């Protein structure tokens, strides 16, 4: 929990306000049903510019039913933006800045998805409060890799209680323009029960050939441990996916038909070793979604691929050995 955690809109005088980005992000993992979900609310563009947009994404993947949910976009003034909350007509997330509790709501009857949940932090947070340089612009973030859940999600005709599910939450903010040389790889991986959780992150160019310093953070028990820099190696060979991507929003998917089957990782292998501990993790995606992000004031597009799947891991951290498997979401931005 970060006391005072809040959205970071630019001042009216900030020269780079046009490049403003801010989002609240929640991932849900239910090891019993193997359902995974992403809820995200975002703001972009100078708030005083009538082209600035707010968006709300809710996508849940069911192994036997594929993706449910959709992306909602509206003018920023039409969204209800609080100190640490963004609410659109169909998708909303609010974070209590005192307790860190996350509340999320989704009402997408046309897309057969409804959700109401609260998520309570159940482990230490990860804070990157400084401006981490992207290849163009910068980003900051904080993450809570482990939260317990209450609530339910209705996917199609199925109602799923979330008492035994797990969650990951983060807040990202920064200044960059989609379409510039901005990309990253990020993943969160949750073992079932009280097993470890992992967060992986590295900035790169849009071709994923030149990488910034990688980081792998592990929450095991009540402790958090991070590996970074040369201690972490990651490898994710790419090929056209074997599954059909859910691509949103539909109008942008129609525009970018050359991205129907992009090359995406078919496996992610991470190894971390720093003399005091080591971790090996392998993730394989089983489904994916492509979110096409467009700049609201200048021509530019980014492609955020959300890959859901299973992982296996083993290692030894500070004298504690583990072998764990579970569900994961890997984000591959191009």
């Amino acid at each position, binding site marked *: 929990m970060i006391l005072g955690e809040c959205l970071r809109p630019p001042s009216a005088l900030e020269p780079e306000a046009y490049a403003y980005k801010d989002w609240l992000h929640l991932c849900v993992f239910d090891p019993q049903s193997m359902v995974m979900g992403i809820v995200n609310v975002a703001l972009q563009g100078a708030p005083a510019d009538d082209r600035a947009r707010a968006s709300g994404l809710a996508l849940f993947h069911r192994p036997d039913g594929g993706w449910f949910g959709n992306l909602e976009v509206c003018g920023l003034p039409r969204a209800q933006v609080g100190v640490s909350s963004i609410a659109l007509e169909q998708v909303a997330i609010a974070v209590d800045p005192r307790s860190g509790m996350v509340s999320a709501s989704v009402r997408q009857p*046309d897309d057969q998805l409804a959700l109401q949940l609260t998520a309570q932090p159940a482990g230490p947070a990860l804070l990157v409060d400084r401006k981490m340089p992207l290849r163009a612009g910068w980003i900051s973030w904080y993450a809570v890799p482990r939260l317990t859940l209450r609530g339910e999600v209705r996917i199609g005709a199925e109602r799923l209680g979330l008492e035994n599910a797990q969650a990951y939450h983060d807040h990202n903010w920064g200044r960059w323009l989609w379409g510039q040389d901005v990309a990253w790889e990020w993943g969160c991986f949750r073992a079932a029960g009280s097993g470890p959780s992992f967060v992986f992150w590295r900035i790169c160019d849009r071709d994923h050939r030149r990488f910034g310093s990688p980081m792998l953070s592990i929450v095991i028990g009540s402790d958090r441990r991070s590996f970074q820099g040369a201690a972490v190696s990651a490898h994710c060979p790419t090929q056209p996916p074997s599954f059909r991507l859910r691509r949103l929003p*539909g109008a942008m998917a*129609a525009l970018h038909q050359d991205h129907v089957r992009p090359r995406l990782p078919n496996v992610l292998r991470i190894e971390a070793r720093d003399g005091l501990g080591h971790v090996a993790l392998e993730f394989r995606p089983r489904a994916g979604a492509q979110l096409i992000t467009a700049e609201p004031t200048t021509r530019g597009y980014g492609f955020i691929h959300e890959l859901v799947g299973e992982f296996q891991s083993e290692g030894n951290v500070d004298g504690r050995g583990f072998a764990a498997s579970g569900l994961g979401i890997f984000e591959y931005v191009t």
Partner: protein
Amino acid sequence: MAASASPRCSTLAEYLAALVAELERTDPIAYERMGRTVGKRRARIGVDDEAVDVALGVSGSLEVTAAKADAPVDGEGYTDRGTLLDLLSGYLEVTEAVTRGRLTVRGQAGDVVRIFQAIEIILDASPRAPGLQGLSDDFKFDCRREERFRVQPAAAFAGSEMVLLARLGLLGST
């Protein structure tokens, strides 16, 4: 007036006129590019039971007239509102719409390509044009006034090539 505030659903002709007028207002460069792309070509666009002929007139403004069977056109495209909703909602790819017979396009290849380019110019301008996004929202709102156009999540994409071959009668008897 926004269609969503209108007591009736907007017609295809009204939507097309509004789209091109909004493009001209918010992105004159894109509008000019569209003019260069389509030139003096005439296209026939049909959605459900409404069909119109469209062309850019001498003044550069869009001319929309009710389709006449004996009027020559350079290209034709036919679909239905359910397909457009599925496309806008991300449940259907353009190639799937064509291979499944939900979007029919006729004309010389060069003319058809230019019609698609004109559509892409509008799509490309839309993220920076709230008015164009508003028209998309109005269209969805209009469609939902009629329950029969409500979006249903599409079944997983499977065997579009087989669908196309079957439609063309090339599968033979089994």
